[in-house]
């Protein structure tokens, strides 16, 4: 059967967070929030279709790179906003510029969906379509964590949940 042979390259992550959809939306789209969890980059979003998306490399990342004698790009991730419907749905392209291998894989597609789930809890679903980007897919799945690349989206979302629910971040 053809459907059985088809390679599926989409990753889906879901987390329930005790926070309003607006708080989660802000935590994804505002730099004063994004610097407090995950890789800690300050996002730059133009929240309209066709608007740009950039995560400039942080000073900490640059210092760490310089300490090891390697150059880091000025922008770590870039992309374009496809759809912005605050605080429910954000669709964008997403390209990792950390190294030539992931840069060469080009743009992938990322969708955030935020829904109220009752009791002051919201459901955040992240869908990452990674067609033609196996190196990036390994990274976002956390398969390179042992090499120090971080735990991918699972780790980022777990950290985001901890930040919104307790005001603190995970260890480190």
């Amino acid at each position, binding site marked *: 059967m053809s459907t059985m042979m088809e390679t599926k390259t989409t990753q889906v992550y879901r987390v329930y967070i005790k926070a309003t959809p607006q708080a989660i939306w802000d935590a994804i789209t505002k730099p004063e929030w994004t610097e407090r969890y995950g890789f800690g980059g300050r996002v730059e979003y133009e929240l309209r279709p066709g608007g740009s998306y950039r995560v400039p490399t942080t000073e900490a990342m640059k*210092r760490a790179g310089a300490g090891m004698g*390697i150059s880091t790009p000025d922008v*770590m991730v870039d992309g374009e906003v496809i759809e912005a419907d605050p605080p429910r749905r954000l669709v964008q392209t997403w390209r990792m510029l950390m190294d030539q291998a992931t840069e060469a894989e080009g743009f992938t597609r990322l969708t955030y969906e935020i829904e109220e789930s009752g009791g002051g809890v919201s459901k955040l679903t992240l*869908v990452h379509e990674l067609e033609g980007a196996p190196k990036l897919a390994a990274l976002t*799945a956390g398969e390179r964590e042992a090499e120090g*690349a*971080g735990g991918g989206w*699972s780790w980022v979302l777990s950290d985001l949940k901890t930040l919104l629910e307790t005001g603190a971040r995970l260890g480190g």
Partner: protein
Amino acid sequence: MTDDDRVFRALADPTRRFLLDRLFERDGRTLTELESELEMTRFGVMKHLRVLEEADLVVTRRSGREKLHFLNPVPIQLIHDRWIGKYRERQASALAELKTELEKEEAG
């Protein structure tokens, strides 16, 4: 039942772990595909998938007429972070280390 209870209950069954293993291998499968790997009725597989969905270990998405099943690792990450996360090292230097590794691979 707490979220953790649901996760541990869902994992405490070899068939459900087998289903997660299949999704880990290749994500986004239909019920028919998953069923073909088990000697079990369609209804039995559906029941197990429902327990996995209730624990949020499996998330389903519609793609045209198909309902695709995805492994959601976040609940397991949350359990991991509860006991292991505090030993995690700073991510910024980690990213830089990964870059070095990747560039070594490309050069080699």
